[in-house]
């Protein structure tokens, strides 16, 4: 049914990717798009650091600085970090649990395309009158006052990509609950699967508050409602609550999968099972739970009162306990192991001290009265970059090297990887460590420039130099990717030799049906167990038989495209607060929604039963033939 996989033309490849519902191809899409947005956010970061290199600098105007700073945050969180993590979840999690795909392959594609169009829409703001300028938090009093359509791009773009994230989260929950191979009990799941599971649950619970907040803000700006307009009886503090009830769990949505990645890498390259597996699982669940109990620590200076501040201070400190458990478990996993320093392992080793610094400054900020000083200063900027770069980006870079063979069948150059790591690690600490002190010395965050004579010159210069090192590191990584792809030297199923989980038992890249026979899981670290018994393959749980596969579909693309079109209509509708409504606004809104709902209708009315790969073809595949 699906096209024969001989050498495909470019057109056929593009069509394949536009219509694919295969989790491994969707992983490629997420990695490519997320990687592109990561570079974009990185360039924005560089502009920020160039502007702040010296006092009273004029590299960009104040307004443009605010736009760049807002888009840097928004892009890195929503369009880079999360999608790249989704790439690895898609590439790895179904295989780790012995499944042939996610529970809802169609929704998986839909989730990606919604994210894609949301991200493109948000970034089109650069060309259509200016980007959002109220910070990624978009606090209501400022965002309502913002001129131009920047904030509208933010509200509409985030709603579209947010739907995608929510759908993907639900999909992973359903997949992990329902699609595990025989024997894969919850307490035998690899840690990356566990953290994906918990992060997905967090997505399910955290994205609705964001969607509601952004939805209300959209109505205020585009249709003249007054949810956040104080003069009309609205309330802006509610926005802060909405945002942070989402915003704090979001941190864990990002960092838990990164924890999962390190929990795979550290045992692999220590040749030792994860120390304290059940306490690692418990700590993950607990972090996820506590993540919802602490949002008001972002609002200590808002004036919530002493009791609220004290309670949220203590709740926040509590998160340090499960996080500490994880750190010590990783250390003890390496203790007594046989540690091989590869690039992924190097990132893991860099992650531990970096993340610990980010973690302890987090506890310091939990001390509410101390946070009155630290809040909204460069100390906070330093803190969350230590958490997000030291935790999440190191995790992403580690996973890029670690899973590259599984995703593309080739191995990134280790030598260039060492160079990237070294430059990135030094650059990162150089950029952000000094910022703790800048904050303590009285530098507020989100300032477009700073005045001379306040003792802030040297620190800012050092910080900017570090940013340049990080940029060089990323360029080398890109070069590495290109060189590796050109060389195209294929690797085997278990290129790291010490793979422990099931993804390392099947070919790199895996065949599109993943497992010819669903494997039988006989314990934690399934593949390791089989290897230790001298086996070359997983134990099958079923006889060889026909495999049922879903058909490709272009419908997810069109559902998302419809919302993309509708967003333009909504933005230029005649009621909008900017006052540049167009007569075509409303018709375009209706046409866009028509495309979306029409596509949904087609999907609902047309029966699509998928197809089967026949047993004979699978046997053929063994002899070197290719199942198309």
């Amino acid at each position, binding site marked *: 049914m699906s096209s024969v996989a001989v050498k495909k033309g470019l057109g056929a490849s593009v069509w394949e990717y536009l219509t694919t519902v295969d989790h491994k191809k969707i992983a490629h899409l997420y990695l490519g798009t997320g990687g592109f947005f990561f570079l974009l956010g990185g360039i924005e970061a560089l502009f920020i650091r160039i502007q702040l290199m010296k006092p009273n600098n004029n590299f960009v105007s*104040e307004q443009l600085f605010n736009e760049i700073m807002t888009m840097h945050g928004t892009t890195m969180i929503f369009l880079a970090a999360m999608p790249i993590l989704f790439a690895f979840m898609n590439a790895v999690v179904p295989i780790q649990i012995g499944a042939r795909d996610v529970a809802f392959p169609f929704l998986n594609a839909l989730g990606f395309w919604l994210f894609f169009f949301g991200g493109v829409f948000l970034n089109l703001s650069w060309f259509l009158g200016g980007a959002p300028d109220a910070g990624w938090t978009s606090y209501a*009093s400022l965002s309502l006052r913002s001129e131009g359509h920047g904030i509208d791009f933010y509200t509409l773009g985030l709603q579209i990509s947010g739907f995608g994230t929510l759908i993907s989260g639900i999909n992973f929950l359903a997949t992990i609950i329902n699609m595990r191979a025989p024997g894969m009990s919850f307490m035998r799941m690899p840690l990356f699967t566990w953290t994906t599971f918990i992060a997905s649950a967090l997505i399910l619970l955290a994205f609705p508050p964001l969607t509601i907040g952004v939805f209300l803000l959209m109505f205020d700006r585009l249709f003249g409602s007054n949810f956040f307009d104080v003069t009309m009886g609205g309330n802006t503090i509610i926005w802060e609550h909405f945002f942070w009830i989402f915003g704090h769990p979001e941190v864990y949505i990002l960092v838990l999968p990164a924890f999962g990645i390190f929990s795979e890498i550290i045992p692999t390259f*220590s040749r030792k099972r994860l120390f304290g597996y059940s306490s690692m699982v418990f700590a993950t669940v607990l972090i996820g739970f506590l993540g919802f109990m602490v949002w008001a620590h972002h609002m200590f200076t808002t004036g919530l*009162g002493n009791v609220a501040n004290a309670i949220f201070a203590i709740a926040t400190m509590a998160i340090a306990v499960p996080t500490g458990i994880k750190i010590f478990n990783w250390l003890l996993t390496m203790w007594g192991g046989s540690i091989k320093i590869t690039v992924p392992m190097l990132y893991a080793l860099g992650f531990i001290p970096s993340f610990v610094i980010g973690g302890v400054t987090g506890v310091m900020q939990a001390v509410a*009265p101390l946070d009155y000083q630290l809040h909204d200063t460069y100390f906070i900027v330093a803190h969350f970059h230590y958490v997000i770069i030291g935790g999440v980006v190191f995790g992403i870079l580690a996973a890029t090297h670690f899973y590259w063979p599984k995703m593309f069948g080739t191995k990134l150059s280790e030598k260039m990887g060492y160079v990237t790591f070294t430059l990135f690690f030094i650059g990162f600490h150089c950029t952000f460590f000094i910022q703790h002190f800048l904050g303590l010395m009285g530098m507020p965050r989100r300032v477009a420039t700073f005045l001379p004579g306040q003792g802030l010159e040297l620190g800012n210069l050092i910080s900017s130099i570090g940013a340049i090192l990080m940029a060089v590191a990323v360029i080398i990584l890109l070069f590495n990717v290109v060189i590796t792809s050109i060389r195209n030297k294929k690797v085997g199923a278990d290129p790291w030799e010490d793979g422990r989980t099931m993804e390392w038992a099947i070919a790199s890249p895996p065949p599109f049906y993943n497992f010819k026979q669903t494997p039988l899981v006989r314990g934690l670290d399934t593949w390791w167990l089989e290897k230790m018994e001298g086996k070359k393959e997983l134990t099958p749980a079923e006889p060889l038989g026909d495999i049922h596969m879903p058909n490709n579909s272009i419908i997810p693309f069109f559902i998302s495209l419809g919302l993309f079109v509708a967003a333009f209509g909504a933005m230029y509708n005649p009621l909008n607060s900017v006052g540049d409504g167009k007569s075509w606004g409303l018709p375009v809104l209706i046409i866009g929604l028509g495309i979306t709902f029409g596509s949904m209708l087609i999907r609902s009315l047309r029966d699509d039963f998928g197809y089967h790969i026949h047993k004979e073809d699978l046997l053929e595949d063994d002899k070197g033939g290719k199942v198309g």
Partner: protein
Amino acid sequence: MKFGRLSFLFLLLTLVLAGCGEPFLSTLKPAGEVAETQLTLLFISTSIMVLVILVVVIIYLIVLFRFRRKKGEENKIPKQVEGSHKLEIIWTVIPILLLLSLSVPTIAATFKLGDVKDMDKVDKDGNREALVVNVRANLYWWEFEYPDLGIITSQDLVVPTDEKVYFNLKASDVKHSFWVPAAGGKMDTNTDNENKFYLVFDKEKADEAGNLFYGKCAELCGPSHAYMDFKVKAVSRDEFNQWATAMQKNKEEVQPTSDLAKQGQEVFQANNCIACHAVTANDARPETARTAPNLADFGNRTRVAGILEYNEENLKAWIQNPEKFKPGNQMYKEANLSEEELDALAEYLMGLKVQE
């Protein structure tokens, strides 16, 4: 033993951090009780955290040096350890104890610094005992109203040293945040409600800082967020009283003496600057009408527009071209005044003094 190490760390940190920043701006050079409490919390929490980091780093280094795969061990399979209840309990319980010990001063300080009960304490005549300042944050400028004294000033906050000064904080357009780093943590000025807190300025520390502390807006509020600075003149109670009395007497505008200044006054009135800018300290208009900084004591300002050095040249440049210095400000983008008019205006404005 542990306590000794902790206090050693404490000492070391004090030494390292004390070298940081300017006395008029740095949170590490506290100017009063509030900032001191917060700095102590910084030291306590940093000490505990450095202790945690040390433990992690020691284990980390041992692991790195002892357990690297060596030549000839390529096929060695280490023992697959499942875990250790004893160790896991240790590294659960010890952090809990550390955090509990941190939470005690946290809660105590939260309630201490958040205590504004004395704000409304009155003496037997029904007069408020403490000094209260109403702070109103506006797009890129600050208004300071002393409700019990009946005076209003802008940009330069004047406070007496060695006593608690209470603040009512709010914003009139978008959310800002009121922060005098050397004197204590910030508090947001919301558009929805009034926040209250207090700060203390020590005489001794004020002297070290040249009696002038820097204040900042800490919440992103638009393109000129970085320029929304104000200054705090911390003076002795006597000096403060003198200033307050002079301000109270300033019920009518100080009439200019020189011809140039008189000309300036005419320009000021002809261009209707007076519609927004009051030139007396007892502006009786409601706050919604007070849409620009009060200029009653402008001759004694420490900065032009909160950021530029106080001199005639800067003043003239600011009046002619405010957008260049504070983009997005609510005055106007640029004026079209002649050089003579500017000279006159500057002369007039710099002569607006309630006291010498």
